[in-house]
């Protein structure tokens, strides 16, 4: 398993990286943790002529609290997120999701930015990022911009990032009061990726009804998506078992589900509904616990 020949560049600053990426154009690729890109290169399914390794740029790896917001640097590893005490209290969905990714080696090398830029249809981060209404920062020689998560995932392995842009940070709101999150996943037994992954955030009203529900779902279709029909079926309603069940039934509405050796489209859609309901139930339980001050 040997890659085609390539040039390797290890810029020390973001500006240098941006310049190299612009210079190589379609011949270049950003290298972060390498845990998606290197396997593709070894299989010779990807053959970039130049790799721009952003792993050595120290100010791209951080987890920061900024008022009601959390900001995470692109090259922050899954493991750092999984083990962050700050996130465990301020945004527990992130450590919970990180803990479901691959195995220890993968989590030690793989990065959140790399995972989002790669946008694997069975990757875990996209589900969480969608459910949290995160924003993704892209930097190029032309300047910087923030892309809402809902606009970020475009198609199979395709994102809103332009060829010359480097993903530099992710920012998202901390867990509000009277809210709960959950990420539930069925692991593919071979790859460990999500056959289905459902990330839920529920915010409760003062009377205990659902003020707002956000559902990010991965593994089902060509890209992760927000289950809008589920959300609207829940918004403003009281969370009865029946209502959760009925709302979750819309989890795969309008999605062109994947079919493979492990799971047919029909089964995947079924899983989307079951996992969505279970994720909502769990998020609800947590929201109620927090509201009760437990």
């Amino acid at each position, binding site marked *: *398993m*040997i890659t*085609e*020949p390539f040039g390797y560049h290890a810029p020390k600053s973001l500006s240098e990286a941006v310049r190299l990426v612009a210079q190589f154009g379609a011949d270049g690729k950003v290298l972060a943790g390498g845990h998606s890109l290197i396997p593709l290169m070894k*299989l*010779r399914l990807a053959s970039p002529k130049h790799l721009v390794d952003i792993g050595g740029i120290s100010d791209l790896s951080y987890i920061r609290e900024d008022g009601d917001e959390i900001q995470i640097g692109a090259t922050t590893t899954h493991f750092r997120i999984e083990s962050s005490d700050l996130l465990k209290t301020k945004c527990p969905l992130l450590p919970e999701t990180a803990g479901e990714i691959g*195995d220890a080696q993968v989590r030690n090398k793989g990065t959140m930015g790399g995972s989002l830029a790669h946008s694997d249809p069975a990757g875990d981060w996209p589900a969480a990022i969608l459910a949290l209404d995160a924003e993704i920062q892209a930097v190029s020689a032309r300047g910087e911009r923030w892309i809402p998560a809902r606009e970020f995932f475009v198609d199979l392995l395709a994102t809103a990032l332009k060829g010359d842009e480097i993903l530099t940070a992710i920012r998202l709101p901390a867990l509000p009061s009277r809210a709960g999150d959950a990420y539930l996943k*069925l692991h*593919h*037994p*071979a*790859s460990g990726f999500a056959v289905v992954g459902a990330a839920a955030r529920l915010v409760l009203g003062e009377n205990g009804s659902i003020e707002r529900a956000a559902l990010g779902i991965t593994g089902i279709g060509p890209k992760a998506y927000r289950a809008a029909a589920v959300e609207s079926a829940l918004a403003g309603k009281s969370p009865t078992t029946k209502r959760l069940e009925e709302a979750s039934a819309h989890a795969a509405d309008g999605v062109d589900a994947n079919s493979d*050796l*492990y*799971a*047919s489209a029909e*089964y995947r859609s*079924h*899983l989307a509904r*079951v996992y969505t309901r279970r994720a909502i139930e769990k998020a609800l339980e947590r929201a109620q616990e927090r509201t009760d001050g437990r």
Partner: protein
Amino acid sequence: MATKLLGERIKRKEDPRLIQGRGHYVDDFRLDGMVHMVFVRSAHAHARIKSVKTDAARAMPGVVEVLTGADLQGKLGLVPCAVAMEGLKIPEHPCLALGEVRYVGEPVAAVIAAEPYAARDAADKLEVDYEPLAAVVDPEKALDKGAPRVHEKFPDNLAFLAKLEAGDWKAIEADAGLKAIKARFVNQRLAPASMETRGVVASYSPGEDTLTVWSSTQIPHLLKTNLAVMTGTDEARCRVIAPEVGGAFGSKLNVYGEEGVACFASKKLGRPVKWIEGRRENLQATIHGRDQINELEVYARPDGLIVGLRCRVIADLGAYHQLLTPAIPTLTALMIVGSYKIPNVFVETKGVFTNKMATDAYRGAGRPEATYIIERAMDLVARELKMDPVDVRMKNFPESKEFPLALATGVTYDTANYQKTLKKVLKLGGYGKLRREQERLRKKGKYIGLGLSTYVEICAMGPSSRMPAGGWEYGTVRVERTGKATVLSGTSPHGQGEQTSFAQIVAEGLGIPYDDVTVYHGDTAVVPLGIGTFGSRTTAVGGTAIHLATERLKKKMARIAAHKLGVKPGELVFEDETIRTPDGSKSMAFAEVVNEAYNATSLPPGIEPGLAEQSVFEPPNYTFPFGAHLAVVEVDAETGEVRLRNYYAVDDCGRVLNPMLVDGQIHGGLAQGIGQALWEEHVYDENGQLITGTFMDYAVPKAPHFSWFETASTETRTPVNPLGVKGVGEAGTIASTPAIVNAVMDALAPFGVRHLDMPLKPEKIWRAIEKGRARAA
């Protein structure tokens, strides 16, 4: 007091170097002037090779040689098959395809360059012009009249037809009081997937005219003979070394074309040639395991006594025979009655050619299929007769006093107490309590299942009369002048830990410290003779040879000591580095006796100087370890997911020399057996493309897939060898697959599900549950 070693949990001598990354595998050998080889492989399941153009590849930087099938024709022998069977069709199997390719991954050309990278890049420049031919992938369709033929020179795809028949089938068919229970099982194709892939370094030295080969193999001595013959090298000038081998599971009990090509290329170039297999190649072109279809009929009396078993086996052999390919499914017939005394047996086995990689020995090799058939059958009988699976098993077990027990299958089981292991596992798991919990949970819409497997297996391969290339094993024990002991074994352990257990045998025998014993294996220039490590034979056959050599050496040392001490040699004991009379009144230090032997100034008459004794042990029979496993699973009725809740294993592998080594073998075996039941399947599409070609799709089990294994043992020694050991290398794999499937089917019983084929993927289970619910509604 002498330290007791046999039967103790002694830490492995192998581990410190392996854990610290200080072992040496084939890829760690770098020789002066070494060049690197990669293979260009067929992307077609079946095609005619119209042309192979090598010019562009040759022109790439660093390339030193490009070889095709035509370059080897008449110069390098064929890939060998060691099996002799009446009517067996053995196709010609060149090391590089000649004229036609017959499976995806078949080597077509070898590109050799100064660097592995250069060789790999050049391989992409090789131009092979194929004319695709119709491929046959499904072994049942391969038997249809008019099916495309894998080998044109044979009239059909039937490689062999074997029958095993015993008893009075007319009486069975005439007996209206019997219940016939039928089933069809698919035992899916698997990839052995050892952590270290295959690899070889071949180094021909033109000056000395010697060929030295480092190969990741289980059978260095057999490989040496075969490579000598294939390459036309004087065998006395050939040496094969198996360094650390990072797993094999039977897949390296073979002689592969790539090994032949490496030797040929090294001889041609006069330089060392290295080939390290990639993971994709490993999944494509290292032998596969299992792949059988079993049509079963079991005849049972209403009280649960099984009187007849009939099975039609279709074994998918793939396109060519590797070393033992056709022999593997015949082991299924041999062990098909399992631990039950079934007097009437009929097994018809059809070995079939298809356009796929060859199947061959994979951990268990034919016996997991047999165990799956009979253990699933026991549960189907239980369900049909509304009996508990425990009772059906108890009803059909022979009593321990009936052993040695000759069975209808033609083998004689040595010793056993099946009732004891079953009772022990039921107690360990709390079977009665679990059954009550199951009842309770079902009422709440939760589904747990209990699955038993009371297996027996055939080990210690084997009597030479039943083996393709001898079943004996070789051992030497040598005491050096300094009193340290050197042990040479013809076996070739690759993870099992016999550097530890053999040292235990010798240290305890000679009464010297365990740390003073060093075991060597896997180098044909160091160890004169050998067969290798496979078929759970290493300790039972190879360990016995070591034990016998130790006894011989003791006899000699006792004679030397007795001569000095003026006592009879027979009364001397070896303990605490002394050789003494039992009452201790007369003694000599071990070191003194060693000095006597080497200085040779006053040896008794007829005693030769030096201290080295060897033995070749020929086993009079196989051994038959057994056990009882109990799996507890939980099925999520909404999604079909299976969770392994508990696993209890009681194994009887005869005398246990080191319980820690036994645990290791059981744990690893369980992982592989459970892997087959729940996750693993090697799948080709209808065109013969391998769709589980990477670890993204082929599900090798990993540690988080498992719950805690609870293991226990009973000890029923065998009289087949003086150590009383039976073998344990494959038990876990053989036993666990049906235990899991039985457990899942038990969990699904309320939905009327009788059988589902492996792997028990959640979708399959979900659909079966949905169907059951629809039926009930």
